[in-house]
Every structure is written in structure tokens, then in C-alpha cells.
């Protein structure tokens, strides 16, 4: 199999038909220099090789054969794994019809080489203690050997999570990067006139509503460790910022005042948040310590300042301001200094959110309708990723390879996901459920 390198996220400049910039390349090379020697060269064994270079936008998809696991739920599990791997754009799942080897038979590389298939997954599933016990083996065709063999157990209800866990292991075996197949997406949905926060798996399954008070609950934002969430809710004609602790399953109001108060973002260490408030008259951006609830005002214009998004390293805040006459994306340091404008194209750029590595900001840009755009924090390399319907509220997956957003392209607004280069756009929220404001969970 080809020798491939590890990198981080891929931003394919598809719309402009250009290769990634030299800076991005430099970053990828830097990562290769850092990551690969550190982990791989210590073990000069072929086992440490990376099969898929996820930093290369033009990487060939890895042809893989995934058998239905033999036994109960085996077909369902295999189907979930195929869907997971296919969505990454890094794998090509080869149709079962071409498998000549019996599922229970011994793996033989000769059966696969002529077909160009490079990896094969087989496994079994059985009922055990009212749950499932699954065994999966992953084979490398070119080297003709087993590269992963693992057993999994779960209760019956967690069959999807079990399958996603297998996908994570397979993904990691090929890319040396963690998979996101067990992450979830929080979003706002409208049911019977009430707007509340829902959570679903990243693939749109297992949608459930959080039992929060209030008929208007918006802007869910995860803490970096996934243990908490802040959001905005209107209760008794007042907007408050609330903090939900998933461990205790309890919520606290952490900020309220007259006017409109909107949850912004957590700082990476989880000890402070940003929010916007009109308590002094116009919407401005604030930082609040979660230890002593002290607040600090960062912006002071007569216009609108909203949507403060904290950079992954916590040093900068991207936000929206209309100080230049129209809503545009700006960046400032987390102490409020050094304000710089990022977007100059178009007259309506809102909802900024950082990529996990901090090298890009995704936002909603208006090109007739609202679209998803991506830009470097220095204002370079603007790329438009969507072109159908109105597309809003973008945010990245924790590995930076995917983006979730809302779109009305199928009339009813729904939550969509796509690869970070704009490929493979699809709705994942339930049909007919008016949904928007999605945020990918960090884990």
C-alpha cells in the first residue's frame, strides 16, 4: 500500500479551483515532521504506517470491502460502518457483489488484489448477556495480514454507538487521527410553536429533545470537554444566558439583564464564556468568569456587536459588528484590544466560528441568499462552500474535516453536514422538523 502521511484538516479550494496555499502546505509538512517522527519512527515497524493522508485533497479513496458481520445486527452494524467511512470521502466501499471470498472463510489476499481492494473487514456478532458481543478484524490486502482485531460489547440499544466505535477504530488505524463517529450535534428545533434545544448523533440518528424550560431556547454552545453547554433562553420577557451541566443534569442562569442577552462561546479551559448583551443600550460583547461571575465589557460602539466566537487557543475572539455600515466579521484579542476587520466582500457576513486548528473561520456570507463561506483569520483565501438555498449557522466538527450548518434548500429549514471543502452536503435532521443553529459536540 502506498506510504502516506498524517496531516490535519483539508480545505480544498474547490470553488476557485486552486490548490491549498503554501502556508497550508507548510502546516501540513510541519505536522508531518512533528507527528510522524514522534510516533512512527520510534517504532520502525510497518505497523505504524499511515494509509491515508488526510491532508491531501486529491488523495485517492481507499477501496475497502466491508462484510456484513455474521450474526444478529451484523448487517445493520456493517451498514453504519460503511456510511461512516464513506462520508469522510477517504474510503470507497466496494459493493458486496464483488466479494468472492466466503464471509466465514479465511482471508486470502489473492482474492482481493485483482479487484484493487486494499483493505477487508470481517466480523461476527452474537447475543451475549442481553447485549451484543462483536468481533471485527481488519486486513491489509497488499501486505496480506491482519492489522486490527478487536472485540466490542454493548447493550442492544447502543448498537449504533457500537458500530460508530468500530468506525472510529478503523478510521484511526488508517489515518492515525481520531474519528468523529461518536460525536453529536446540538441544534434548535421548533415543535408546536416552542423552540428548544435538541441533540442528535452526527449522522442524524437518535434525535432527542433536552428538557429545558422556556418556549424560546437558542444558541447551544458546547464546552471544550463536552461536559457543559451554554445557551440563551427567553423567560418572563427576559433573555438570560444559561449553563447546563450534563454531569448533574442541572441548569443555572448565569447572566440576565434588561434587553437581549445571548450566549457566545466557552473559552477552551471552560472557566469563562463570552456573551453579548444590550444592558448598556446597544448589543456589545462581554467576557464572564464562571468562577466569580465577574464580567468585562470588550466592545463599546453605538452599533451592533454580536456572535463572539472564541478561537481554539482562547487568545482571540471573532465577532460580528456593523461599525463599518454593514455586518462584517472582525477579530479582536480576548482582552478586547487589537480589533481587525476580516471580511470585506459582500454586505452581510455573520455567525463566525473557528476551525479546531484556528487556521480558518467559517461564517455565513450573503451572495443574494445566505451561503457558507470560509476565510483565513487574516482575511485571505475566501471560499464559498454552498450555493443552494439559504445556508446559515456553520460550525466545524472537532477534527476540522466537516462542517454542520442550517439550510432551507428543501423548503423546511434543517440541519446539514458537509465535508470542510463543501463536498457531500446532506440534511441530517428529521424531515419536517424545522431545525437550525447546529453545533458539533467536541467529543
Amino acid at each position, binding site marked *: 500500500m502506498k506510504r502516506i502521511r498524517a496531516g490535519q484538516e483539508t480545505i480544498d479550494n474547490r470553488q476557485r479551483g486552486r490548490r491549498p496555499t503554501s502556508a497550508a502546505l507548510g502546516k501540513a509538512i510541519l505536522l508531518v515532521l512533528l507527528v510522524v517522527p*514522534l*510516533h512512527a519512527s520510534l*517504532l520502525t*515497524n510497518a*505497523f*505504524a504506517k499511515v494509509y491515508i493522508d488526510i491532508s491531501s485533497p486529491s488523495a485517492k479513496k481507499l477501496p475497502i470491502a466491508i462484510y456484513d458481520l455474521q450474526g444478529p445486527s451484523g448487517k445493520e452494524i456493517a451498514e453504519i460502518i460503511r456510511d461512516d467511512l464513506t462520508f469522510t470521502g477517504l474510503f470507497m466501499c466496494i459493493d458486496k457483489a464483488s466479494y468472492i471470498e466466503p464471509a466465514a472463510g479465511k482471508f486470502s489476499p489473492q482474492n482481493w488484489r485483482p479487484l484493487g481492494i486494499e483493505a477487508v473487514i470481517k466480523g461476527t456478532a452474537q447475543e451475549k448477556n442481553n447485549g451484543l458481543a462483536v468481533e471485527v478484524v481488519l486486513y491489509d490486502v497488499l501486505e496480506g495480514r*491482519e492489522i*486490527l482485531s*478487536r*472485540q*466490542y*460489547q*454493548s447493550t442492544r440499544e*447502543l448498537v449504533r*454507538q*457500537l458500530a460508530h*466505535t468500530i468506525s*472510529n477504530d478503523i478510521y484511526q488505524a488508517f489515518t*492515525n487521527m*481520531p474519528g468523529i463517529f*461518536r460525536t453529536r450535534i446540538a441544534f434548535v428545533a421548533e415543535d408546536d410553536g416552542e423552540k428548544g434545544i435538541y441533540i442528535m448523533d452526527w449522522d442524524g440518528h437518535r434525535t*432527542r*429533545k*433536552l*428538557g*429545558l424550560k422556556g418556549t*424560546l431556547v*437558542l*444558541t447551544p454552545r458546547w464546552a471544550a470537554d463536552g461536559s457543559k453547554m451554554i445557551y440563551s433562553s*427567553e423567560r*418572563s*420577557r*427576559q433573555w438570560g444566558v444559561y449553563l*447546563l451541566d450534563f454531569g448533574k*443534569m*442541572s*441548569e*443555572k*442562569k448565569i447572566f440576565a439583564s*434588561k*434587553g*437581549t442577552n*445571548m450566549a457566545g462561546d466557552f473559552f477552551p479551559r471552560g472557566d469563562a464564556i463570552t456573551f453579548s448583551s*444590550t444592558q448598556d*443600550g*446597544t448589543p456589545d460583547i462581554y467576557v464572564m468568569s464562571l468562577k466569580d461571575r465577574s464580567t468585562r465589557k470588550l466592545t463599546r460602539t453605538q452599533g*451592533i456587536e*454580536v*456572535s463572539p466566537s472564541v478561537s481554539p487557543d482562547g487568545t482571540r475572539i471573532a465577532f*460580528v459588528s456593523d461599525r463599518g455600515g454593514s455586518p462584517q466579521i472582525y477579530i479582536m484579542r480576548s482582552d478586547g484590544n487589537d480589533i481587525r476587520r476580516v471580511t470585506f466582500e459582500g454586505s*452581510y457576513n*455573520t*455567525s463566525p466560528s473557528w476551525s479546531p486548528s484556528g487556521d480558518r473561520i467559517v461564517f*455565513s456570507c450573503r451572495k443574494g441568499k445566505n451561503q457558507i463561506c470560509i476565510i483565513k483569520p487574516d482575511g485571505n483565501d475566501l471560499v464559498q462552500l454552498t450555493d443552494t438555498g*439559504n445556508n*446559515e*449557522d456553520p460550525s466545524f466538527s472537532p477534527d476540522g474535516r466537516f462542517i454542520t450548518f442550517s439550510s432551507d434548500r428543501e423548503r423546511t429549514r434543517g440541519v446539514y453536514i458537509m465535508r470542510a471543502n463543501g463536498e457531500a452536503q446532506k440534511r441530517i435532521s428529521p424531515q419536517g422538523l424545522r431545525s437550525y*443553529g447546529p453545533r458539533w459536540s*467536541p*467529543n
Partner: protein
Amino acid sequence: MKSGKHVIALTLALLFAFGLAACQKKAAVQPETTQPTQPQTMEKKDKDMEKVTEKKIDSKIESVDVKDKGAQYVESKESMFADILFDYDKYAVADSYKSVLQSVSAWMAKNLSARLSIEGHCDERGTNEYNLALGDRRAKSVKDYLVSLGVSSERIDIISYGEERPVCTEQTEECWAKNRRAHFVILTKVGK
């Protein structure tokens, strides 16, 4: 052969756990811990065993806040004043609404125990968060105008609903225009 492979796999996993300590996988899936040096027998299988679990998200969420003080004011059912409408993406009050605002001001002067809540609303074309800010600015523009007419700012509250509470849900200019509004709600003291 196989055990060697697994030792390497585990070493690699450990290295990764070290190198990427801040990484994700920490949450629900916990591989069972066994010594990597165990002899290769039946235990071999347990070594690579993962118990897939998930922390359940309770549907019941406790709100530890003290209950909001009971509203001392009740909202009037129907607004006696016309909505103030705004241009797309704008929050300036048009001159044509001066007469409406003068009648609001006159009414407030006569009904000294009443309070006024001004709701700012937007059409659906902006993004939700920005629209909440825009709605707030619209409500504030109206409030500022009323204050300039002599209404005490203490008697006026503003709140934005952005695009979350439309009066009209079709995707037409006519409908959008109706939604870009400041809406008056009279609050009267309970028991009066």
C-alpha cells in the same frame, strides 16, 4: 508473532494517548485495561475488548435557579397601537410613524401606572443571532423616540425576538415587511 503485534499496537496506542493527550476519545468508550505483557492465550481477546457505553442524557433537567419573581405586570391581550415597520436590515424609525409614536406618548402620559414593552422583530432573511441584535436595535430606536417625546425611559422595557416570532410565515416581500416591526405591549399592574 501475534503477541508482538499487539504489544506494538498497545505501545502505539499509549504513545498516541501521550502525544495527543488532549484528544477526544476520553469520554464513553473505555478499553479494558490489561497488561500488555500477558502471555498469548485466551486473554489475548480481552486485551482488545471495548465496552461501548454512553452516558445517558436525562430528559429531566433540574433548574437550580430561584424561581423568577412572579410578574408584577400583565400584558394587554391586544395592542392598541400599530406596529412600527422597518426597512430591510435597517433600524431607523421612518418619519411616517411620528403620529403613531405621538399617540403612544400621549397614552402613556394619561396612564401613569402602565408600562410599555417594545418588542423588536425581524424578517427571516438575516441570520438568527444577528437578527436578535437587529430586533433589539429596532426596539431601542422606538424607545429613544418615545423618550424624546417625554416618556420616562424607566417605564419602557425592550426585548428582541429577532426572527423567532414572525406574524407572517410566507416567503414574500409583503410578509417579510410585516415581520420587520416594533410591536407595543402594554403592561398593567396586577390587580388594578
